[in-house]
């Protein structure tokens, strides 16, 4: 029987970014400010979706991490959140490059790093979910074999 190991879900960088995202989104919404790069390089509906996405991603991701029910559901919510987080930060990185070019090297690097990290984490979660599904199949099969109730 393979070893069933789900990676720890308390990853400091991920939690910090997920916690910062909704704060950032709510502040931008309530204060009605947006980064110039986002304003110049996205259509207005996409801008609004981008902000709402930040909030949804943060709340959803943290919810998925502390999800009290099934592990698979929590992982799924977290997976969706980090996928969208990767998209949102990737969009922001592209917007930064488009708006400020070389001036934005530092900002772009870090934002792109968050995007890469999010997608990386998404891949990890996908692997974990597959392992979990395999383990569930394996356990029930072995139970049938052994006659364990």
């Amino acid at each position, binding site marked *: *029987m393979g070893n069933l190991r789900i990676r720890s879900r308390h990853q400091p960088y991920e939690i910090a970014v997920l916690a910062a995202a909704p704060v950032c989104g709510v502040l931008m919404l309530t204060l009605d400010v947006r980064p110039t790069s986002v304003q110049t390089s996205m259509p207005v509906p*996409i801008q609004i979706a981008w902000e709402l*996405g930040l909030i949804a991603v943060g709340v959803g991701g943290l919810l998925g991490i502390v999800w009290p029910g099934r592990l698979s559901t929590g992982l799924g919510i977290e997976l969706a959140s980090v996928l969208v987080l990767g998209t949102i930060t990737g*969009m922001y990185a592209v917007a930064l490059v488009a708006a400020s070019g070389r001036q934005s090297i530092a900002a772009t690097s870090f934002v792109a790093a968050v995007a890469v990290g999010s997608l990386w984490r998404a891949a990890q979660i996908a692997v974990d979910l597959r392992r979990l599904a395999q383990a569930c199949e394996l*356990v029930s099969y072995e139970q049938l074999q*052994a006659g364990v109730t």
Partner: protein
Amino acid sequence: MISSPAPAAPHWVQMALSVLGILGGSTGLAAIATVVVQRGKFKADAADTLTEAALTLVQPLQTRITQLESEALNARSELNVLREQVNQLQFLVRVLNRTLDRWRTAIRAPDATLRKVRATVTETDRSTQDR
């Protein structure tokens, strides 16, 4: 809010970002939908999975342990029986040694006669019968 000045915003960037955003958003939704649809695959809770997996690991060990325990019990009772037998045999050896010594002294005695020796033997016979 500043009305978009858009000097540094080529149209293709807007298009690309829109496509990227829609793609990412729909991917996220698809991920949630997939997990919800495939929920049947994950029958157990996390805790359930872990305990059940542990159970499948522990089960053979447990049967092996009970097997070994019963074997150890058998071996111990057999050992007791054998020890009892050894005790009895030791006792018997001691008795026989004593008898042999008595006979030897009776035979080696300077005034040994056949009758005396016979008397000694009969005496030992009686004492063993008494026992």
